[in-house]
Structures are given as C-alpha cells and as structure tokens.
C-alpha cells in the first residue's frame, strides 16, 4: 500500500514538472535571441508597406484630422515644405554666411590695397552743411533699427548653430525670445525711417549723365582722378536704391510674417520667408560696405552724417558738382550776408 502510494506520488511529481517546463522557460530562461535580425520566416513583413515618401509623391499632401479649430494643423507634409526646409536649413545659412564673409573679406582686401581714402588737397577749414537735422535723425534712427534687426535676424539663422553651443539652452532660449520681440518691435520705426529717407533723398538719387562715368572709373579707383558727382555719386545712389528696394521687400514680407495667415496660406508664408531672408542677406552685406566707407574707408565721410558738415576740399574732390552749387552760399556766409545753417538743398 505504501509502495503504491509512493509510486503515485512520484508519478504526480513528474507530471507536474513536465507541465511546468514551458512556464519555467518563460519566467527565468528566455531564449537567446538569434544573431541575425532577420525574421525566422525570412520575409520582411513591412517590406511591401507604403512609405511616407510614396504617400507624399502619390497624394502630394499628407493630411490628418485634428480636433482643434485650426484646421491648417491637419496638414502634415507637402512637397513645398520639403523645398522650404532645404532652403531654410541648407541653402540660407550658406547664402547668408558666404555673402557676409565675402563682403568683409573683400573690404579687408580693399583696405589693404587702397588704404584709407583721404583728400588730395589740404583741408580748407570751410565747412559746408551736407545733411540737416531731420536727415541725420532719420538716418540714425533707421540705422539703429537696422542693426538691431540684422543682429536679431541673424540669430534666427545662426543662433542655434553658433550661439547655442556657447551659452547653453536656457540662456539661448531667453535670448531668442527677446530677440524675436526686438525684431518685430524695431521693424516699425525702421519702416518709418525707410519711408522718410526715400522721401528726403529720392530727388538727389535720381540717375544722371555723370553716373556712368563714375561707375566706369569705379569712383576714380581705376583712373586715379575724381569723377564729377552731384550731391550723391553713383555708388551712393546704388546704396540708396538698394536700401529702398530691399527695404520695401523686407517690410512687405515682414508684415506678412508678423500677421501669419491673415492674407496668405502656408505656401505664401514660405514664399514671404524666401523673399525676406534673401533680401536681408543681400542688404546686410551692402550695409556692411556702407558702414565701412562711412567710417574706416574714407576720411571725412563720417562728419557728413555725424556732424552734418563737410570740409570744402572734401566736397570739391568727392562731389565736385554739388560743391559748385554750394559756392554761392559759402561766399555769402564768408561775406557775412548769409547764415551758416543754409540747407544743403
């Protein structure tokens, strides 16, 4: 009896152990994964599944459904977005970087070759009013805004690449947010200054018959003489019209982006960004040249906009036609019959 009971107990233990083998394998001894990542069947189950790229090419738009009222958010991807991404993350940094670096390098080379441009004749000490207070205030207000706009605008493109690694995420986030606010705020006095400058100086910047000679001789760089010029020479006229045209492009596209989707859809917003960034790249490079020639590049140029007056010698050499126009006023002032504050035009 005891023997029969023991045999039965042994059989029960063996059966229990046999039944629990799979459970033991699951809990404590997971099978070692195969060295190959290929599925055991040898087929990739998702090989025939449609890809994101195929969907985009076939449907031209990948759209979903959203519960928020802004239904534009349902558009996930479209080919124009790929182009915009290529421009914003690939082409634009190179375009802007090359333009700026090339301009700085070119100016440095020019300075090494030509040096600072000074007048050939000695200074007379006779001053001629070149810009009145309104003109200078307009220039400096616009210049202040442009510098803020350029630096904060460059942060949009180069901040995450250059500044972020230096100052870290928290400081960069705060700086970027304040930069955005400064960019949209200073845009308005910039646009006001742009319109004022255009109104004040458009007459003196209309093309005339002397411009071609000035351009042909590169302002006297190739001929060694000073080509005749009126109040503004051809180089200054190019700067003026560049500022006006690119400034208007920047203003129009900037307003479009400042009030997103008021007038244009996402494609229009991207086109506005194309125009804004491209115009900014060119104008920043041009203004760097303008700053160079107005400070380091030419002696006496800063006085024109800083103090509003230039020496008669400077006027005769760089703006001979304008200096001739001013001669009666200079003589009248010397005779004591006129005022020292005679307007330039």
């Amino acid at each position, binding site marked *: 009896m005891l023997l029969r009971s023991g045999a039965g107990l042994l059989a029960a233990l063996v059966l229990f152990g046999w039944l629990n083998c799979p459970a033991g394998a699951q809990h404590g001894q997971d099978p070692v994964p195969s060295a190959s990542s290929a599925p055991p069947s040898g087929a990739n189950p998702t090989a025939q599944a449609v890809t994101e790229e195929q969907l985009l090419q076939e449907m031209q738009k990948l759209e979903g459904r959203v519960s928020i009222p802004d239904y534009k958010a349902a558009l996930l991807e479209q080919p124009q977005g790929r182009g915009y991404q290529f421009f914003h993350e690939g082409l634009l940094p190179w375009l802007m970087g090359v333009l700026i670096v090339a301009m700085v390098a070119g100016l440095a080379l020019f300075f090494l070759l030509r040096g600072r441009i000074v007048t050939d004749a000695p200074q007379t000490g006779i001053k001629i009013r070149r810009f009145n*207070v309104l003109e*200078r205030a307009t220039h400096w*207000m616009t210049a*202040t805004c442009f510098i803020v706009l350029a630096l904060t605008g460059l942060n949009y493109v180069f901040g995450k690449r250059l500044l972020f690694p230096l100052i870290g995420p928290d400081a960069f986030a705060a700086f970027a947010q304040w930069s955005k606010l400064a960019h*949209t*705020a*200073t845009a308005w*006095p910039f646009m006001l200054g742009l319109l004022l400058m255009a109104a004040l100086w458009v007459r003196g910047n209309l093309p005339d018959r002397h411009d071609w000679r000035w351009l042909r001789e590169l302002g006297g760089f190739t001929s060694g003489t000073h080509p005749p010029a009126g109040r503004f020479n051809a180089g200054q006229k190019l700067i003026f019209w560049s500022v006006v045209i690119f400034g208007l492009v920047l203003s129009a596209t900037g307003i479009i982006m*400042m009030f997103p989707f008021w007038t244009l859809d996402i494609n229009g917003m991207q086109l506005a960004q194309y125009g804004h960034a491209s115009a900014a790249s060119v104008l920043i490079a041009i203004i760097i040249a303008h700053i160079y020639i107005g400070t380091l590049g030419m002696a006496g140029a800063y006085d024109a906009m800083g103090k509003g007056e230039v020496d008669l010698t400077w006027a005769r050499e760089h703006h001979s036609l304008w200096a001739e126009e001013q001669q009666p006023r200079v003589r009248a002032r010397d005779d004591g019959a006129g005022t020292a504050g005679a307007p330039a035009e």
Partner: protein
Amino acid sequence: MPVILASIALALVLAVVAGLGLHSMQAPVYQSQPMQSVRVGDPGHNLVGPNWSGNPGRPENSERALNATFREPG
C-alpha cells in the same frame, strides 16, 4: 552726437510703442481658438492637474487630493 543719441532714443521709444501695440493684438490660443475638448498643454488647467492627481484645480487642492488618495490606513 546729440542727434545720434536722440535718434537712438526715438527708435527705442517707437519700438516699445510698436511692441506694446503688437502685444495688445495677440491673444492666448485658448482665447483665440476656444473649443470643448481638454487642453493638456497647460498643466494647471488640464485633466490630471499639476501633480497628476486627477484634480485640475489649484496646486494645493491637487496636493490635498493626492494625500487623501494615498493616505495610510489606520
């Protein structure tokens, strides 16, 4: 130099005025696009509350609810 400084000051004043004007035209997204569903972007007013306690009220309420939920028995 006085003209330059005055121009910089004028640019600053105009920029501040423009910035305030732009700011007054903006509205938070929950005001500009109100809807019936729950937003989870604002942890103070969403479904679970700032402490993930299920109480979307003020933080101290959420803390109280959290303590009540996980109070030690006895």
